[in-house]
């Protein structure tokens, strides 16, 4: 360790677990100096892992350059490189890991592999100032209700099958919607749902503190194909049903853990209707409600950089030969030495 002050030490973080390639730079005292995100938008269909990885490789040097410029931090001034080591899509993770290894070797500085889910929670806490929240993390790949206890983040509830974001995305695709950069499927469904009026009954599946969304997806696609209801009403009913389910399990976990802060993060956190539902249960249980700003709620490099700072300053370093990506790295497996 050098004796430089925290604000003059920097960590560069690389995120590439799914469709976004992103580089962020954070000071050791949690000031985010850069957060550049380049999203891969497939012309058709879902994310093809190898095509997304090719996108990441194509934009890597451009995004790195932009992040360095945005931060004003010259690479030799970096202290550590952090990267998203998992969970996620193999080819995508490997592309980010390769860039990270190359940078760390070239600059002769340590490398730190970060769990993607931990990073979502830590950036949320940093940006909102929450200390020990119950976190609802909802994205294209994850749906979980999490709280820290005794050294680790514990998963109290999660999806038994597909993620909430995935459910919305697949429906949107089936309904023939087209996403554009800056206007993802989730936002399209949200917009349509706002003009929906009629609530159509759909499967509502809560099992303990877990939800199951695959039955709902099948039913809502079938409903749309029947063509008896407007797309607006179908989107409205889908959102109301799916969001009520995750809100119910969040409330269950909140009552169970007795936390006084609720944090909403992940790509779906941008949805205003979901925010209002989670805010409502937080209020009901006298808990503070916070939602992570969208640029830090979607997959981003800043969260990896900041969690890299936390891990590195608490003695975590990942040797190059142990830096292989971990596709199914479960949140509960990660020790969190920076929390008591």
């Amino acid at each position, binding site marked *: 360790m050098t004796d430089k002050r925290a604000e003059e030490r920097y960590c560069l973080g690389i995120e590439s677990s799914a469709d976004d390639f992103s580089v962020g730079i954070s000071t050791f005292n949690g000031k985010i100096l850069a957060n550049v995100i380049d999203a891969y938008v497939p012309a058709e269909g879902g994310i093809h892992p190898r095509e997304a990885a090719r996108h990441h490789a194509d934009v890597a040097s451009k995004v790195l350059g932009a992040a360095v410029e945005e931060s004003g931090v010259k690479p030799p001034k970096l202290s550590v490189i952090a990267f998203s080591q998992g969970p996620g899509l193999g080819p995508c993770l490997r592309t980010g890991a390769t860039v990270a290894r190359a940078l760390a070797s070239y600059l002769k500085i340590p490398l730190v592999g970060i769990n993607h889910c931990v990073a979502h929670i830590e950036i949320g806490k940093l940006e909102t100032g929450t200390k020990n929240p119950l976190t609802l993390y909802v994205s294209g790949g994850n749906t979980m209700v999490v709280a820290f206890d005794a050294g680790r983040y*514990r998963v109290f509830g999660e999806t038994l099958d597909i993620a909430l974001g995935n459910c919305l995305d697949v429906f949107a695709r089936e309904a023939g919607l087209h996403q554009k950069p800056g206007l993802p499927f989730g936002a399209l469904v949200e917009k349509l749902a706002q003009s929906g009026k009629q609530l159509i009954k759909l499967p509502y599946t809560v099992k303990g503190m877990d939800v199951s969304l695959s039955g709902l997806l099948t039913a809502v696609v079938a409903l749309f194909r029947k063509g008896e209801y407007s797309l607006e009403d179908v989107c409205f009913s889908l959102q109301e049903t799916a969001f009520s389910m995750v809100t119910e399990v969040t409330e269950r976990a909140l009552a169970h853990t007795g936390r006084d802060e609720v944090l909403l993060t992940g790509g779906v956190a941008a949805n205003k209707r979901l925010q209002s539902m989670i805010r*409502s249960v937080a209020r*009901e249980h006298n808990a503070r409600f916070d939602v992570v700003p969208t640029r830090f709620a979607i997959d981003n490099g800043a969260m990896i950089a900041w969690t890299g700072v936390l891990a590195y300053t608490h003695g975590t370093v990942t040797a190059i030969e142990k830096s292989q990506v971990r596709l199914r790295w*479960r949140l509960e497996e990660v020790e969190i030495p920076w929390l008591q």
Partner: protein
Amino acid sequence: MKQPVLMKKGAEANLYLADWNGRKVVLKKRLPKEYRPKLMDEQIRAYRTIHEPQLMHEAKKAGVPTPIIFLVDHKNTTIIMEYIEGKQVKQLLNEISKNQRQSLCFRIGELIGRLHEYGIVHGDLTTSNLIQRSEGKIFFLDFGLGDKTKELEARGVDLHLMKRALQSTHYKFADECFESAIEGYSTILKSETSENVLDKIREIERRGRYVAERKERE
């Protein structure tokens, strides 16, 4: 009735302690949830209010202690039931020895076995829904998410949920507790059936996201 006292503000319902015709009772009132649409909310609350006492009654037939139901007021989505004086298994597990934990979990496993054999799944097998009365009887509460079914899938999910609840709340001895529960469970159901349920649990785990078992196969 004397003024009921709020005992617990749960996620789904408020529990009030009250005196009802000279008996100590619990009022379980499912309150409207502001976050979901009114129609959906009413349907969910009405369904669970009627369904829960039915399952509690069925559970007794299966030989599993549950509070006595005195009144179901579906208009006010309220159930009036016997108050069980005892200790939550959630606390109990932290206070007893390893041997006591094993035998407690074994007995819980036996009771779950009886429920499943009779065709009931509980739907929310957390340790806060289990109460041991002073004489030792274990009561099952909170059947709001339960179901009448003998499907393998439902049984597997039921036990999988219990395993997960143990892991998040009792991580220090989750594995030994679950193992003892499974031992007890397997004494009730036919060995072939309980083997199938155990296979199902493993299948559900593999289906899950980012699980160790699937990881090994990569």
